C-alpha cells in the first residue's frame, strides 16, 4: 500500500551556492508543519544542506548552469527529502558514502556522514553523466502529523 502524502513541495533552482540556504529554509518551513523537536529540525537542515551542496559542487562541478530539483514530502510518519541533479553522477556509490571519502582534496568527506547520522534512511541513485538522486527520510515518533492537518 502506498503511503498517503499529506503535503508536498517541489522546487527547482539553478546551481549556485546562494540556493543552499534557500533549500534549507524551505525544507525547514515544510518540516515545521510536523511535530518535530528543534533538534530534529536542525538535523534536517544540515542533511538538506549537504545534499544540495553536493549537487552544486560535485554534480555540476560548481558551474551555475545546472538545475537542482528539490522535493519535500510529508507523510503520516515521516518526512522525505529528495535532491536531484543531472550532473556528472557517481561512479562508485558505496565508496562515495564512506566516511572521509572525497574527490576534492579541499574537502573532508563529511556530507554523507551527516546525512546518514541525522536521517533514518539515505538512498542514493546515480548514473555516470546522467545525474544523482539522493533520498533522505526521517521517521517521526508518535503522531507527528497532527499539526499539519489541524
Amino acid at each position: 500500500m502506498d503511503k498517503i502524502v499529506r503535503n508536498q513541495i517541489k522546487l527547482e533552482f539553478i546551481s549556485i551556492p546562494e540556493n543552499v540556504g534557500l533549500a534549507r529554509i524551505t525544507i525547514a518551513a515544510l518540516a515545521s508543519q510536523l511535530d518535530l523537536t528543534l533538534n530534529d529540525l536542525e538535523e534536517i537542515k544540515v542533511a538538506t544542506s549537504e545534499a544540495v551542496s553536493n549537487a552544486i559542487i560535485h554534480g555540476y562541478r560548481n558551474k551555475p548552469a545546472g538545475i537542482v530539483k528539490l522535493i519535500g514530502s510529508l507523510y503520516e510518519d515521516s518526512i522525505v527529502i529528495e535532491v536531484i541533479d543531472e550532473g556528472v553522477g557517481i561512479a562508485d556509490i558505496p565508496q562515495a558514502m564512506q566516511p572521509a571519502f572525497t574527490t576534492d582534496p579541499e574537502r573532508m568527506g563529511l556530507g554523507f556522514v551527516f546525512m546518514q547520522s541525522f536521517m533514518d534512511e539515505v538512498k542514493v541513485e546515480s548514473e555516470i553523466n546522467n545525474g544523482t538522486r539522493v533520498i533522505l527520510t526521517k521517521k517521526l515518533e508518535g503522531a507527528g502529523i497532527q499539526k499539519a492537518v489541524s
Partner: protein
Amino acid sequence: MSFIFNSKNRTLLVKITGELDLVTAKEFRERLDKAIDEMFTKNLFLDLTRVSFIDSSGLGVILGRYRKIQEKRGIMIIYGMNTNIKRILELSGILSIIPAFNSENEAWTYLERKSLKEA
C-alpha cells in the same frame, strides 16, 4: 555573515556571526587567510558564539585553518559553540583535533599553560 577581527600578541581573535555554509565558506576562508598573513598571526582563536548554522563546507574551512596554524607551530582554539554546533563538530571528529572551550577566558588559560610548557 560578518566577522570581527582582533589581534593581541600575535593571537588573532575572530568573532563570527551568521551561517557557515557553501555561500559563506569562500569569504570566510579568504578573509581569515588575509588576516592571518597581515597580522603576523601565530595563534588563532575562533569565537563561534554567534554562529547559527554550520555544515561540512564551514567545517572544511575551520580544519584548513587549523592545518595552516599548525604549520606555523601556533595554537588554534575554538570556543562558544551552542549545543547544535557542538554536536556537528563532535560528529565530524574536529573536537578530538582542535582544542575547544566554553569561553575566551578558558582559551587564554589554555594558551598560557601551553606556552609555559614550551618555554
